[in-house]
């Protein structure tokens, strides 16, 4: 018998010393990590979950916003517009999928039309291109399956898979010597002279000159470990449905007029890269910031919205629910609907950079936000370019997207491309192996899922999960109790039936 294959090990940097410690491996943390990799200096990312993009960065709509939703002269508007402009180059360097997808913000009556006009004007002030207001007839000709009287038509919105983008950033950062530490939560930050001591739930302490707090929904807690700055995150849950693949029902993203006192953009309909449709998110302020459960009431509300805007969608099968939590800040006026991003060097503790309240449009803004953070650092010290930085990430093979000829060729090169592990999304064993052996060395079932789309289709893993589990046991020598859905508390099995 051959030796069991191992996933690629990542050296565990026990009690090491760094120039930069980034807390949180969401899209913001990973964007900053990759941006810092362009300069000299040792960077460590500490993440409490078992993978990057484990919370808000995986559970959103995956929309790159054109920039008309945010008030002018805010960080939200600025980073949105700047970030969006950076995505094309990023997608070429990092080889993640991105598709320009037009958007309609739909008004049902004259009252709502006023809000569209406001958004149009706001977009103009923010420098957004490709916006215009249209009426019912034109809506019908664009989208025969939706209801609406007026719409704001945006040409330049895009969709991505937010987890894929985050993974791509992290893998590229990792390739450029950024280190990632998973399954350790930061519990303590102290300052000794000019060195931060960052303690973790596993009892490790890491030293660093800079600490960058990208802890998302926990960013206020992390900031408070160093100093009392008064920021407070108000977690706001957003629930979603995902439908089975549906081509042709809608071509564009369909958004309602944002609810007046709501906390989000309203429940919308987003076609995904793979032709599913996302329905959501809802917006409910909650007290427990880890509560990503789906609720019966919201599931009902989401369905009601379907009937209002796209009645034809009611007949499509749903395949999954999920929920994410917006890390909302509330501004001084007590207005729950708008507070700007906080991206600043901590007012009391220098060399600690806080990123707090990075909710929507944080995904779109991420590249610009990362740039801002590097500028904050660069204003304090000379950052030296890392000439060895390689901006390129190799494109993973997506068998399903290839022509028959290309598929046949791949199988000749590697027969594992001829073994179909996931039938719904046509994912081959070679792609599963590639996902399991990812550069970050994470290998829960969810990690595999987000890297190759296995378990994401209409059968939700009914066919492929036993096959993937079989690979993990037989080829990688994993014990049954060590097969996890995501983190180490989420074991699939409690042992063998017969020892």
């Amino acid at each position, binding site marked *: 018998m051959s030796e069991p294959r191992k996933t690629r090990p990542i050296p565990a940097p026990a009690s090491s010393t760094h120039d930069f410690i980034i807390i949180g491996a969401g899209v913001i943390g990973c964007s900053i990590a990759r941006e810092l990799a362009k300069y000299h200096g040792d960077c460590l990312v500490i993440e409490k979950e078992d993978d990057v993009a484990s919370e808000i960065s995986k559970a959103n709509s995956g929309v790159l916003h054109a920039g008309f939703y945010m008030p002018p002269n805010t960080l939200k508007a600025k980073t949105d517009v700047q970030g969006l402009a950076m995505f094309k180059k990023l997608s070429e360097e990092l080889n993640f999928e991105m598709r320009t997808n037009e958007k309609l913000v739909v008004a049902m009556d004259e009252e709502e039309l006023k809000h569209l006009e406001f958004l149009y004007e706001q977009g103009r002030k923010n420098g957004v291109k490709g916006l215009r207001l249209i009426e019912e007839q034109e809506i019908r000709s664009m989208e025969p399956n939706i209801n609406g009287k007026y719409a704001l038509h945006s040409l330049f919105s895009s969709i991505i898979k937010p987890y894929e983008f985050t993974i791509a950033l992290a893998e590229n950062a990792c390739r450029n010597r950024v280190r990632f530490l998973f399954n350790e939560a930061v519990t303590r930050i102290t300052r000794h002279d000019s060195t931060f001591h960052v303690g973790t739930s596993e009892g490790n302490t890491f030293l660093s000159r800079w600490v960058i707090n990208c802890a998302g929904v926990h960013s206020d807690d992390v900031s408070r470990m160093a100093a009392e700055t008064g920021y407070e995150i108000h977690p706001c849950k957003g629930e979603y449905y*995902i439908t089975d693949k549906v081509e042709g029902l809608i071509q564009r993203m369909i958004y309602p007029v944002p609810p007046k006192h709501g906390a989000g953009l309203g429940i919308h309909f987003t076609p995904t890269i793979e032709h599913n449709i996302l329905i959501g998110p809802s917006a409910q302020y909650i007290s427990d910031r*880890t509560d*990503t*459960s*789906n*609720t*019966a009431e919201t*599931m009902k509300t989401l369905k009601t919205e379907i009937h209002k805007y796209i009645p034809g969608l009611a007949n499509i*099968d*749903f*395949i*999954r*629910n*999920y929920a994410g939590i917006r890390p909302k800040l509330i501004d001084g006026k007590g207005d729950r609907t708008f507070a700007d991003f906080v991206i600043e060097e901590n007012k009391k503790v220098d060399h600690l950079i806080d990123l707090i309240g990075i909710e929507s449009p944080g995904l779109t803004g991420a590249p610009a936000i990362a740039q801002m953070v590097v500028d904050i650092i660069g204003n304090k010290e000379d950052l030296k370019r890392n000439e060895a930085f390689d901006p390129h990430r190799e494109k993973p093979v997506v068998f399903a997207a290839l022509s*028959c*000829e290309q*598929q*046949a060729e791949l*199988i*000749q090169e590697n*027969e*594992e*491309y*001829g*073994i*179909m592990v996931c*039938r*719904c999304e*046509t994912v*081959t064993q070679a792609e599963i192996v590639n996902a399991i052996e990812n550069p970050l060395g994470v290998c829960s079932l969810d990690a595999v899922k987000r890297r190759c789309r296995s378990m994401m289709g*209409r*059968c*939700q*893993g*009914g*066919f492929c*999960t*036993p096959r993937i*589990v*079989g690979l993990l*046991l037989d080829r990688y020598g994993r014990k*049954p109790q060590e097969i*996890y*859905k*995501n*983190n180490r*508390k*989420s*074991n*699939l*099995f*409690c*042992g*063998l*039936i*017969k020892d």
Partner: protein
Amino acid sequence: MIRREVDVVVIGAGPAGLAAAVSTKRNGVDNVLLLERNEFLGGILLQCIHDGFGLHLYDRMLSGPQYAERLIEDLEKEDVPCLLNSMVLDIDKNKMVTVANTKGLIQIEAKAIILAMGCRERTRGAIEIPGFRPAGIFTAGVAQNFMNLKNLKPGKEVVILGSGDVGMIMARHVALEQGMHPVCVLEIMPFLGGLTRNKVQCLDDYDIPLHLSTTVTDIKGKHRLQGLTISKVDENLKPIKGTEQDIACDTLFLSVGLIPENELSRKAGVALSRGTRGAQVDNNHETSVPGVFSAGNVLHIHDVADYASLEGYYVGEKAAEYVNKGWDQPKRFPIQAGNGIMYLLPQLIREDCRELELKFRVKRPYENVRVLIKNGDVRLYQKKFTRILASEMQIVRVKSDRPLSDVTICLEKTDA
């Protein structure tokens, strides 16, 4: 790219596909090819280690693997070639079948195609249970695969949602394994989902509680399942406030329905039926695409594997006739399903047909009803039932002197 030409290609080597391949060959087609995506023949039968198979076909109780063995022996006797580990990726409108395996991509040009891909399980996402999404929630078939084929223990305290046959069989299976315990079986409907014999043999004999009109209304545990809230439901299947009850468990098996797996049929251009979610077929089991046939669970969900195999035999016979003699596409007449009928099969009758085997299921259990089948005004069949169940497929043969062109089937109330 490898190219092949065959007379008949059968997709799927489960109970229906194996029988169809054997039957095609026996009816005089030499060039038959059987395609199977697993590395073994028999499909889902191999993980069904319980008995109950073969009563109709072999007049004895066999386990799933034993039943598969008999079909496979026949296949070997008939010397039908098969490709294992071979997944069909596409069927185009000209009946070109594209298959992937470790040898490469194969394009198979077939005169006739028999669709026998089986079904998949309905998942949590489709039935929308609120709560967290932790590890520890399995569809019953996946749990069966893990336990029987991989020797893996999915959990200790197991609740089963859904009283379909797979759910009840898995409840008994859990009762028989050391260190595993079936807490209860829940059923949202006010009646049993599966066969009565399975309730007796799987639940009653092992004292496993069954709660009707009950469903899961909350799932607890962010990482691994830690418990459920269950609630009674009203006549509209909505949970009734105040009836919530918390149950401690670490595992939930879902046995909440099977869905014919017709993605390939759709690619081939085959019209599907809303009632069965399988292909629309005529009395030859020919679909809307000439020369494409369908049998087994991909056509409609069967109660027992034997019926799927019988359908396979029948379709093999018809596919052979199509290849050897050929036929013109005739006029087809729809059969109308009336009161109380959930679905019927075939949906269409070919012109000049005078004899027909009709399969149907009722919507829910009924008492004191008459099943009535008519051709125009002429009664072809009537039978009184003191009790008729949704879980039991009915099979009826009808004959007529005149061609069947206006067939209706319905339920009528009768006196007790």
